[in-house]
């Protein structure tokens, strides 16, 4: 059974890797798959707050927007390389996370949620009105695609050619997105199974007991906020260099709500759940985008479907699809070692 599952996983991964090279590939499907990857990263980033720390964040999309505009503006004004922009956008997202988090993370529960909601609205208002910087509602068009420039390597080798590859079409973004998802996934798994991740989970489970176990609640919440917003900004930077056009209405409250739905649907605090939630809701969104107009309904009606899903999941599976928290902890080598030791002790 276990072997079959592993084989299935490898087959799925191989299929995912091979798809853009297949003759039957479809640009639209590739586009949706890349979109799913963007939302996977967003969902994994958001999961840190409500999932690991028990903090309801309704303004996550604000940081996604900050990342996207950081990347977009740096590209059109300074023509900066994507590889330089990514760390800058992540740091900028984290910086805003700390700036928002430091004064507000002492608030608990609903109050904190309201502040984050207000912040994301503020981001949209800023992007819309500060025309000198963001061009306002017109958006930022003409962002250059991602490129890989290794001319320096050529000149190092004494070849006077331009070794530059600019991303065109969906396939290169597909692989870049995959790498991004994998990177964030590994980081999340490692954080979850660490002193930092355990401190976060302790805060979620019982803040008073966590403080009495020696955890500085405020500091760890700020760290959580910075990591989460940094990942949101990473997704934003990728998004800007992929769609090549950004405008304020891409970062409206509904996006925050959608990402939150993904996390809740997948299971709060479960990293795999965030991935599955992203797949389900984005795929469903695309299906409804086609299906609803055929039924004579406007495309926005799809939010009703999201709402219905949330009601059903709360009724029948309140913990989400995957309810296990701290999953990676149980799979770490040290725990496997301990399990074997305990089993040996029991038989002895």
């Amino acid at each position: 059974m276990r072997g079959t599952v592993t084989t299935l996983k490898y087959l799925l991964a191989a299929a995912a890797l091979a798809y853009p090279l297949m003759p039957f590939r479809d640009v639209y499907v590739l586009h949706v798959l890349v979109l799913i990857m963007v939302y996977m990263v967003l969902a994994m980033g958001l999961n840190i707050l409500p999932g690991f720390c028990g903090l309801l964040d309704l303004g996550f999309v604000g940081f996604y927007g900050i990342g996207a505009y950081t990347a977009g503006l740096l590209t059109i004004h300074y023509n900066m390389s994507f590889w330089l922009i990514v760390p800058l956008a992540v740091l900028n997202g984290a910086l805003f996370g700390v700036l928002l988090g430091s004064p507000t993370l002492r608030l608990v529960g609903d109050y904190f949620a309201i502040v984050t909601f207000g912040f994301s609205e503020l981001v949209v208002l800023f992007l819309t009105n500060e025309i000198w910087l963001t061009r306002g509602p017109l958006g930022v068009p003409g962002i250059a695609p991602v490129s890989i420039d290794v001319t320096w390597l050529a000149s190092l080798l004494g070849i006077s050619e331009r070794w530059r590859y600019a991303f065109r079409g969906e396939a290169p973004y597909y692989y870049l997105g995959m790498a991004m998802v994998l990177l964030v996934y590994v980081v999340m798994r490692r954080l979850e199974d660490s002193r930092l991740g355990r401190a976060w989970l302790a805060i979620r489970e019982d803040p008073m007991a966590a403080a009495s176990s020696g955890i500085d609640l405020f500091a760890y919440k700020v760290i959580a906020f910075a990591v989460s917003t940094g990942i949101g900004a990473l997704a934003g930077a990728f998004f800007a260099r992929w769609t090549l056009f950004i405008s304020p209405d891409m970062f409206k409250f509904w996006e925050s709500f959608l990402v939150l739905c993904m996390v809740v649907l997948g299971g709060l605090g479960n990293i795999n759940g965030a991935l599955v939630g992203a797949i389900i809701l984005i795929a469903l969104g695309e299906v409804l985008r086609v299906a609803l107009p055929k039924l004579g309904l406007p495309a926005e009606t799809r939010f009703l479907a999201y709402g219905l899903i949330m009601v059903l999941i709360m009724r029948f599976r309140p913990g989400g699809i995957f309810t296990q928290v701290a999953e990676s902890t149980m799979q770490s080598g040290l725990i496997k070692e301990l399990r074997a030791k305990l089993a040996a002790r029991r038989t002895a």
Partner: protein
Amino acid sequence: MDAILAVDGVSKRFGGLMALSDVSFTVERGTILGLIGPNGAGKTTMFNCVAGIYKPTDGRILFSGKERGQDVAGSKPERMTALGVARTFQNIRLFSSLTVLDNVRIGRHCRTSSNFFGAVLRTRSQRAEERRIIDAAMECLDFVGLGDLALSAASSLSYGDQRRLEIARALATEPRLLLLDEPAAGMNPKETEALVDLIHAILERDVTVVLIEHDMKLVMRICARLVVLDHGVKIADGSPREVRANPDVIEAYLGKGAAHA
């Protein structure tokens, strides 16, 4: 006398309610002190003041951990834990969707130091620290007798075992002073008996114990000294024998007939 903790004129006011007024007592190192009194007498409030959950309205709390006689009143809970004060809760507060081991590993937090970068990069020192955390946590779990259940869910434990797990988590912080808030509540006689053995074993680890408990037989048996609170005021302080004979205590708490029990 070597006092590990000296509570000096501590008051705590919640709005118009004086939960504690001008309470003073000392706890001698290496002994068990019992804090008793009727419900609402301010016992848990006193614990919360010592553990840093509440800031006393007035008074000093002198703790002699590494430094002697440091005033720690109003310190944050995580600082008190770092200084060497650990506590358990009256209504059990476990990290219930985590494993038994994780609960105790979280207790190691203040004695370890790896950060975000250590976790992401899995540095050699981070991995070595994780191994030490597991070893120390297992030592605490074996000490309270829960070692074999290390990988079970904390919420699956029996009530008595949950209380023991709280003690294990508190011990994982390497305390000098352990505050136990009604550790025997809800335990059957057999579990209580095991708890007595456990508390004596804790004392042998060079940890001083302060105990809130309603089980008078238990308190009279294991405590070297008792402090009695009533309506936030200390009404008696002395050996169990003295306290049992104190008319104020009989009036407020023990009830007539206790003197002959």
